[in-house]
């Protein structure tokens, strides 16, 4: 098993993508396969689920030592199961296990079934492995919290839903996982619910992602209507017979799915919830809002790639969304002062890169960037959490400073993560994945120079804000006293993640430099290969420019923040700069834009008093709805004669329409 999977890992691009051995032998092998696998495939989501059930039912009665053992142990267990599965996995035979038939009507039957292919394994690995590390970290990080058990219960439920999302082979089950992670995200953002702004952030996140979910649900129903099934392999196999390339229906479906993905992955125009979601505990930000849940949108698009391939318009829109988002979020990250918000904007920006890659058809590059991003961004969030805790819950980077000497371990791990985020050439994983995306944004069939320029600019900005973050936090003089250093349970995950965020890049090199393509070979049975244009600029030049821009960005950041610190808080040179900074700081004023375009006219129409005007779309919607509520409540005035009048008016309306038509 191991030997074969290794052999397949080494397969080159020349081997056919769909080897077609005789049917009987496939069936035989599949049967053997199932016998080995089916015994523990369900264990992967079941273990965290069991952890959730135990913790939520018995949470109050468990001792403080037992809670993390159950909470983290269940995730570690499923991580081990995933690693075993990955070792045994044979890329030619996706594994499927039907647990039970959820329901079947003559049109639609939905089984609760799990299936695993290479794409799923990549996600599974990140979810369980990074998840396990974050759980270990949380065991120490959350120890003093009153609701220790509730925290682990919600985290376990999240892991379970996320695993269900990526292991589902039909869209109903996928949607279930999709809703499940949304619910857990809601629970965990509002974990410290005593503070009203935390509940508000949770509500905002939930509502805005629900907008996307609604679009996605409608997309699912349209898919069902077209294909009469929601079983993903069937849809992907039939889509090319069912639709011509560029069909309007298919594009609509694809765009509705993108709507769901955009909401979950915090991309334009539904990105504004993610920075606020940082109200949750740091491990939550690391797990849900950096490594896993926010990339569910990337997963969805990659999973349904067959639909997107046939719809160039939808692909183009995905690429454009990604490109615009990565610039906008990068600029916002430049000027934030809260360490977690900087990281949040940078997450939005990095997911923008993934969308860009998906949009130009660089499927495996997108997933590879997800893979590396999960490690270094989780690392950055965890390290940031450790810093914040050591500095008496201080979030502002301008009140940190000088931590290089005080917290050396945190410094080195953070440095590894930051270098990876900035894509420091050749020694970090971020470089390899981002370089691939940049190359394809120019060279793939759907790519074009403008996307490439945007990507390069984004890389430049990323390098600047990363350097700024590093310099401000770790150099300079100490501004807040370090109360205590994190213990081994917190530093161990950091070290592991730091090693990984440096090392995982080496499995995939730019193909003109060295022929190592472990990752793209691994997923090649699932995702279509990227088609490249011919006669484009030599890759070496593009790479050279990218590397130069990154280094230049680091230099600019270093010069500005270390040598001549111009971006210190309350220290602006020109009014133009100040307003630009302000504009970026508020996330390009998207909240204000929504407020002006949608909320204010609405409020104006419903003649609200001006004081009620609020600055956020969420409260805007909810206030608007409450206004409607108040308007309609007037109809429930308790007067019987009014009710009689209502009934008669209803009759009159129906009869009149009837007579007219």
């Amino acid at each position: 098993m191991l030997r074969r999977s290794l052999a397949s890992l080494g397969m080159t691009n020349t081997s056919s993508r769909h080897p077609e051995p005789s049917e009987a032998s496939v069936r035989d092998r599949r049967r053997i396969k199932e016998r080995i696998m089916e015994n523990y495939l369900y264990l992967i989501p079941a273990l965290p689920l069991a952890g959730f059930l135990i913790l939520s039912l018995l949470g109050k009665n468990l001792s403080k030592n037992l809670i993390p053992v159950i909470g983290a142990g269940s995730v570690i267990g499923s991580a081990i199961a995933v690693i075993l599965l990955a070792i045994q996995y044979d890329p030619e035979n996706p594994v499927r296990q039907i647990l039970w038939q959820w329901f079947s009507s003559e049109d639609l039957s939905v089984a609760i079934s799990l299936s695993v292919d290479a794409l799923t394994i990549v996600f599974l690995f990140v979810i369980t492995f990074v998840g396990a590390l974050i759980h270990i970290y949380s065991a120490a990080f959350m120890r003093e919290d009153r609701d220790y058990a509730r925290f682990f219960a919600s985290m376990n439920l999240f892991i379970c839903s996320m695993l269900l999302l990526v292991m589902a082979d039909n869209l109903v089950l996928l949607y279930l996982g999709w809703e499940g992670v949304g619910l857990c995200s809601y629970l965990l953002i509002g974990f410290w619910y005593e503070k009203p702004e935390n509940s508000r952030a949770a509500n905002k996140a939930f509502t805005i992602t629900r907008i996307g979910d609604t679009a996605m649900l409608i997309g699912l129903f349209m898919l069902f209507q077209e294909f009469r099934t929601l079983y993903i392999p069937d849809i992907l196999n039939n889509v090319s017979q069912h639709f011509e390339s560029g069909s309007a229906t298919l594009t609509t479906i694809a765009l509705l799915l993108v709507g769901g993905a955009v909401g979950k992955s915090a991309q334009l125009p539904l990105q504004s919830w993610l920075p606020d979601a940082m109200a949750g505990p740091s491990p939550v930000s690391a797990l849900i809002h950096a490594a896993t849940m926010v990339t569910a949108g990337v997963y969805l698009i990659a999973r349904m790639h067959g639909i997107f391939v046939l719809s160039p318009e939808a692909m183009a829109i995905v690429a454009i969304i990604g490109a615009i988002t990565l610039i906008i979020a990068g600029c916002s990250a430049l000027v934030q002062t809260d360490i977690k918000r900087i990281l949040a904007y940078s997450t939005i920006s990095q997911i923008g890169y993934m969308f860009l890659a998906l949009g130009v058809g660089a499927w495996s590059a997108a997933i590879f960037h997800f893979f590396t991003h999960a490690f270094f961004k989780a690392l950055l969030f965890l390290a940031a959490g450790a810093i914040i805790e050591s500095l008496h819950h201080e979030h502002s980077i301008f009140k940190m400073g000088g931590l290089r000497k005080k917290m050396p371990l945190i410094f080195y791990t953070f440095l590894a993560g930051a270098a990876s985020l900035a894509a420091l050439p050749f020694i970090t994983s971020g470089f390899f994945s981002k370089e691939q995306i940049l190359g394809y944004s120019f060279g793939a069939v759907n790519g074009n120079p403008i996307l490439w320029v945007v990507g390069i600019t984004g890389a430049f900005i990323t390098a600047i804000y990363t350097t700024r973050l590093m310099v401000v936090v770790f150099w300079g003089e100490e501004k807040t006293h370090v109360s205590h250093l994190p213990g081994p349970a917190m530093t161990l995950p950091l070290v592991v993640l730091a090693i990984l965020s440096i090392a995982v890049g080496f499995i995939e090199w730019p193909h003109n430099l060295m022929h190592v393509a472990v990752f793209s070979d691994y997923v090649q049975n699932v995702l279509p290969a990227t088609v490249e244009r011919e006669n484009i600029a030599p890759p070496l030049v593009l790479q050279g420019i990218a590397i130069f821009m990154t280094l230049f960005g680091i230099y600019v950041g270093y010069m500005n923040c270390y040598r001549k610190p111009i971006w210190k808080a309350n220290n602006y040179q020109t009014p133009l700069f100040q307003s630009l900074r302000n504009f970026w700081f508020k996330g390009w004023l998207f909240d204000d834009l929504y407020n002006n375009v949608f909320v204010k006219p609405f409020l104006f129409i419903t003649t609200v008093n001006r004081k009620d005007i609020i600055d956020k779309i969420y409260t805007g919607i909810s206030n608007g709805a409450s206004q409607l509520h108040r308007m309609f409540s007037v109809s429930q005035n308790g007067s019987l004669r009014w009710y009689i009048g209502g009934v008669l008016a209803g009759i009159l309306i129906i009869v009149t329409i009837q007579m007219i038509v």
Partner: protein
Amino acid sequence: MSNEQLLALLPFMVLAGASIVVILMIAARLSHTAIQVAGFLMLCFTVLAMGYVRDILPQEILPLFIIDGFAALYTGVIIFSVGVVGLLSYIYFEEREENPKEYYILLFLATLGAAVLTISRHFVSLFLGLEILSVSLYALIAYLRNRNNAIESGLKYLILAALTSAFLLLGMALFYMETGSMEFNAIGQKLAGSDPGVLFKLGLALMVVAIGFKLALVPFHLWAADVYQGAPAPVTAFIATASKVGVFAVLMRFSLAVNLQQSEFLLNVFSGIAIASMILGNILALRQQNIKRLLAYSSIAHLGYLIVAFLPGTREGIEASVFYLFAYAITILSAFGIVTILSTRMKDAEDLSVYRGLFWRKPLLAAVLAVSLFSLAGIPLTAGFFAKFIVLLTGANYNLWLPVIVLVLTSVIGLYYYLRIISTLFASAPAAEPRHKPLHPFFHFVTYATLFVLMVMICVLGVFPGPAIEGIRQFLMIR
């Protein structure tokens, strides 16, 4: 009438007998407990009788009734709801000063009315069923006569219901004029060829009014919140479940017989009503602080969802609607069960503040309420999600995109207020403990057990809906 036909009516006769048994027991001065037990046994007999006559179905008892799988399903949901309402009623009425015994007579009569609606195939049986149901309901709503709210809501319901029955009758009369018949099927046949006249169309519209009133659909929904609030909690549960199931069943049977869905115009009227109900119901519930009113508004919205399954008029739609009603009945019964248990002697537990921090005081009750609210909101892995899902599938299948999209969007609004209650359940600052009169511990246990079973059913139907759907399909084959 042949023996088999008589036998097929057995469940309904047992049901009618139940109220007579209760009358005799009151005459014999038996205790509330005895009446409660006897009533429950009679419901069990009804279920047994239904199982017993299953093999001889379908039976047509000309001209009034038809007993087929369709009727059996809806009657089953009604009997199930009444069984739960009966169990909940014991502890509710036991601690109130009014004599609770006559309550059961009315309850069984109302059940009989709703059950008759499911088997009627003739205007006379439709009207009689509806009126048996309504007249019993007037008295049930106003049963706690020393509370001003009860009288008010009873009188409101009475006047509005009587008014709409007059419209229903006028509609029927106009139908009769056009077709010379009062049987659904005969009407359908007569209509098949000819182009209906103006008066006939008017009649149809008037019948829609009466049905819409009973189902509390917009714009005939105004009574719902007041009546839900004023009526005793178990009666509210009955109105929300059994009475709506019966009326919906007869609406479905009638529209299938006369091919209502073939008419483009009526389809539009019903989609309009459904859309308005979904939007208005959810918006009215948004900031509501009284949980009984909130559930009333939510039931307006839910009936709107149900109409989406009614629109296609196919077997698929019937399946979806039966499942929906069943899931909805379980869910709303468990919610009202909690309201019933938490009610104190003078006041029903309707204010949201009663529920603040419930989880820390009574975790089981809070869990039941939370699960039922999740189900109402349509969170996956609950019965409510699945019910909504198949309704949506049916709608999407027949290109009813506008209602489907409105359904999805309004569910999002719904989520907001359900989550609001759930977060109240978990809030700190527990309110003062409402005191209960010490009750027979057995009945207390039974009530808790019932609620627990309902919660389990919500989850099981959400996780394994397959067998239920299969059962519904098999029953619908009996025709």
